[in-house]
């Protein structure tokens, strides 16, 4: 991870906010911290485990003109925050809570979701979870989780939002009363969209992700996810049925053409 960027973040956050880098994407760096940005009392209330927060930082990109960079950083930080804020109000949909956002520096603070899986299977995202069950791939626990994953995506789409980058690492499992409950994270490419195309692509991207990481059991896995997805729409009566038909039809079309349109030279 680029040292320079970390220095930038440390200067910006001041030494009062110690950070631990956890990942670097093309657009953003992700850190964890134990310090709440403004509500000091929130850090103390979590019993023995220190509460963690995620800081997502979009560093300035030197290759582009400063004025383009500023507008983009601001726009994207704001739009990601907005989506998170809106989605956290959808009943039943699980997304991490937005805590703070500084659009001028491209920084957002989010609630930390997830934990470490038992027996050093890594962080509790869907990818590692499925790997953990690779010796018992059709366990009822897996089916339950994947069904819930489908429900989450169904809820997202039913409310006319799209994720834009659905991969197995962007689904994080959080334990609630002994049950795993999937959370959608990273809405960096997310958008509010009523287009069936966007929804179809979302489903296709996740299907591809499942196939590429767990190809042997992918058919069953994708079937479970789709079952969950459909259940959300089917609960919405006739209108839901119609919309579901449209989305699934488009999903199959997208799958046929492999996401990409045929293009003229």
């Amino acid at each position: 991870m680029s040292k320079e960027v970390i220095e930038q973040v440390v200067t910006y956050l001041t030494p009062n906010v110690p950070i631990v880098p956890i990942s670097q994407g093309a657009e953003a760096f992700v850190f964890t911290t134990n310090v709440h940005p403004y509500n000091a009392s929130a850090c103390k209330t979590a019993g023995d485990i220190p509460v963690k927060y995620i800081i997502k930082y979009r560093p300035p990109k030197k290759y582009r003109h400063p004025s383009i960079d500023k507008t983009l950083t601001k726009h994207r930080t704001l739009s990601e925050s907005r989506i998170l804020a809106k989605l956290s109000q959808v009943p039943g949909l699980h997304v991490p809570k937005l805590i703070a956002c500084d659009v001028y520096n491209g920084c957002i603070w989010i609630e930390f979701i997830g934990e470490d899986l038992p027996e050093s299977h890594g962080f509790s995202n869907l990818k590692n979870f499925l790997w953990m069950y690779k010796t018992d791939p059709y366990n009822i626990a897996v089916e339950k989780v994947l069904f819930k994953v489908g429900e989450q995506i169904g809820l997202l789409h039913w409310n006319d939002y799209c994720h834009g980058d659905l991969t197995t690492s962007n689904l994080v499992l959080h334990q609630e009363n002994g049950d795993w409950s999937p959370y959608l994270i990273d809405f960096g490419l997310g958008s509010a969209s009523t287009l069936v195309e966007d929804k179809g692509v979302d489903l296709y991207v996740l299907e591809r992700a499942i196939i590429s990481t767990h190809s042997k059991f992918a058919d069953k896995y994708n079937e479970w996810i789709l079952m969950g997805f459909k259940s959300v729409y089917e609960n919405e009566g006739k209108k839901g049925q119609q919309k579901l038909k449209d989305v699934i039809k488009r999903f199959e079309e997208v799958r046929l053409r492999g996401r990409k349109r045929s293009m003229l030279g």
Partner: protein
Amino acid sequence: MPYESIPQFDTRGVCVSLFRDVKNIEELRSKVGTMPFAVIDASCVCCREQLFSAVYKALIEWKYNRLRTKALHSECILSLSPTSNIGEAFRRFGIKEGTRNIICLAVVGKNETQTSELFDVVDGEEVELSDENLGSMFDLEMIKKVCWPLKVFQ
């Protein structure tokens, strides 16, 4: 005096107090704008998180010279509002006729000493600014009205 710090802004601190049954609301209302602190109607604030997230937001805007109101203290009130309408924010979150409980909030430099008598002008019973106390004072109907576009309250 209760004093809160915002980790990212280490040169600043927040003095904040909650007053119950304030008797000189009219006097305070006439002085709004001249007092060195923000006066907020406690019936619009349900918890500390809500209050401090607004302070944090105002501080960010202040740091980058993007204040939309005249001063940091008024910006704190505006930041409580889900809209960017300044007049409406003051009407809703500022003190008004019938206000009984208030929150006084001042953002001060770390080493400023005059803070102890800062809120002396308020004639009311000072109580701890805790989620519990705030929870007993706030008006759910009011919050619903303010945040009407948000799905969750429909």
